[in-house]
C-alpha cells in the first residue's frame, strides 16, 4: 500500500466505480493481476465501499412534512394591497418633502435677501466726504493747511467784505470777483469751498441720507397647509387600508385554509 502512488489509488477507486474508460480499465486490471500491492489496495477500497453499502438505512424518526407556519408560507396578498401600499408610500414621501421645503425655503430666501442688502450697503451709497475732498496743500508746514497764502486784504476785498457784512442788501454775485477766498482753518484742516452768496431760491446742499430699505416681508410657506393636511390624511388612510386588508386576508387564510 505504501508503495502505491496516490494516482494509482485514485485510478483504483475509479475502476471500482466503473468510471475508467475501457482501455485504461484493461491496463489497470492487468497491473492488479501482476502487482500484489496494487491488488491489496484495490481490495481495501472495495471492502470499504462494501461496508458502507451494508450500512442499514434508517427510517426517519418522524415525518418532516412542513406546516404553513414552519415553512413561513404567507397568504396571498390582497389584490388592492400593493395599490394602497404604493399610495401610502408616495403620500408619505410627498409629505416629507413638502414639510422639508416649507422648513428650509423661507429661511434660504431670507438669507439671500440679507446678503443682497449687505452688498448694497458696501458699495452703493453716495459719499459726501469723498465729494468734498480737499485740494492739495503746500509742503511748507508753516502755512495753514488748505494751500492758501495769507495775503494782505486788497481794497476790493475789504469792500466786498463790507458788503457781505450787511445782511439787508444781498448782492448779486459778481462774476469777475474771485470765487473763493482763503479761510482760516479751524477745527478741520480742509480746504473749504468759499461760501458763495446764496443764490435766490437755491436750496442749500444737504447730504442725501441713505434710503432706508423696507423690511422684507416673511415669505409664505411654498406648500400650503391644506395640501400638507391632505397628504397626511392620504398617507395615513391608504396605509391603514393596506394594513387592514392584509390583516383581514391573513386572518381569513389562517381560519379558512391555506388558499
Amino acid at each position: 500500500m505504501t508503495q502505491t502512488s496516490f494516482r494509482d489509488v485514485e485510478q483504483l477507486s475509479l475502476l471500482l466505480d466503473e468510471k475508467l474508460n475501457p482501455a485504461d480499465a484493461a491496463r489497470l486490471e492487468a497491473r492488479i493481476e501482476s502487482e500484489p500491492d496494487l491488488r491489496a489496495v484495490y481490495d481495501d477500497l472495495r471492502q470499504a465501499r462494501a461496508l458502507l453499502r451494508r450500512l442499514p438505512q434508517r427510517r426517519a424518526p418522524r415525518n418532516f412534512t412542513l406546516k404553513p407556519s414552519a415553512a413561513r408560507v404567507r397568504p396571498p396578498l390582497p389584490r388592492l394591497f400593493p395599490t394602497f401600499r404604493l399610495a401610502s408610500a408616495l403620500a408619505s414621501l410627498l409629505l416629507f418633502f413638502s414639510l422639508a421645503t416649507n422648513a428650509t425655503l423661507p429661511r434660504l430666501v431670507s438669507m439671500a435677501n440679507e446678503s443682497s442688502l449687505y452688498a448694497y450697503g458696501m458699495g452703493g451709497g453716495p459719499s459726501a466726504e469723498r465729494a468734498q475732498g480737499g485740494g492739495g496743500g503746500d509742503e511748507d508746514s508753516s502755512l495753514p493747511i488748505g494751500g492758501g497764502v495769507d495775503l494782505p486784504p486788497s481794497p476790493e476785498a475789504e469792500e466786498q467784505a463790507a458788503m457781505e457784512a450787511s445782511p439787508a442788501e444781498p448782492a448779486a454775485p459778481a462774476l469777475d470777483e474771485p470765487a473763493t477766498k482763503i479761510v482760516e482753518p479751524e477745527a478741520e484742516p480742509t480746504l473749504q469751498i468759499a461760501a458763495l452768496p446764496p443764490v435766490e431760491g437755491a436750496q442749500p446742499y444737504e447730504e442725501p441720507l441713505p434710503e432706508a430699505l423696507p423690511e422684507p416681508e416673511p415669505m409664505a410657506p411654498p406648500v400650503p397647509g391644506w395640501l400638507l393636511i391632505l397628504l397626511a390624511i392620504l398617507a395615513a388612510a391608504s396605509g391603514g387600508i393596506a394594513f387592514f386588508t392584509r390583516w383581514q386576508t391573513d386572518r381569513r387564510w389562517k381560519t379558512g385554509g391555506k388558499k
Partner: protein
Amino acid sequence: MNETALIQDAQNGDLDAFNRLVLAYQDALYNTALRIMGDEDQAADATQEAFISAFRHISSFRGGSFKAWLLRTVTNACYDELRRKQRRPTVPLEPATDDEEEIESPRWLADTSMSPEQVAEADELEHAIQHCLNALPTDFRTVVVLADIQGLDYSEIADSIRTPLGTIKSRLARARLRLRECLQDFWELLPAAFRLEDGSRA
C-alpha cells in the same frame, strides 16, 4: 407519483405537493444527515432545516436530479450545524482516561465498560462505520456518504456540493482508503459475512 408535476406544484406554492416529495425523500435526507453529523437529534434538525430551506428556494430548482438537489440542501444544513458546533464546542464523545486525557483509539467502542444495554442496542457494524466516518474530515465524509451510502453519481455529487469532478474523485479515493484503515481496527466487530468476503480475496 409524478415527481415533475409535484415539483411544479410546489414551485407554485403548493405545500401539499411539496409534502408528498418530503415523504418520498425524508429517509434519504435523514440518513445522509445522520452519517455526516453522527448524531440522531442533530441529523433530524438538519433534515428539517433542509426541507424548510428546500421549500423556500424550490423556485431555484432548474431540473435534473431532484434527489441530488435535496441532498445538497441537507449537506449545507449539516455544514451549518457543524460550523455551529465548532463555534460552540461540546463535551467530546470520546471517553477520558483517569488522567482526564481523551482516548484517541477507536477501540473504546469495544470497551467492556459500556453497559450491557448499550452494547445490546448498538449495532456493532453501524457504530464502527459511523465512528470511522466521524474520523474523516467533513469534506471527505460528505463525498463518501453521497457516493457509497446514497449511491449518487460523481457528477451528481459534484453538483450537490459544488465541487469540481476531479476533487470528488480524489476525495472519494482518500476517504475509502482511510475508512478501510480505520475499520481494520474493528476486525472482530465486523460481521461474519464481511470477514468471509474479506477472506475470499486472498
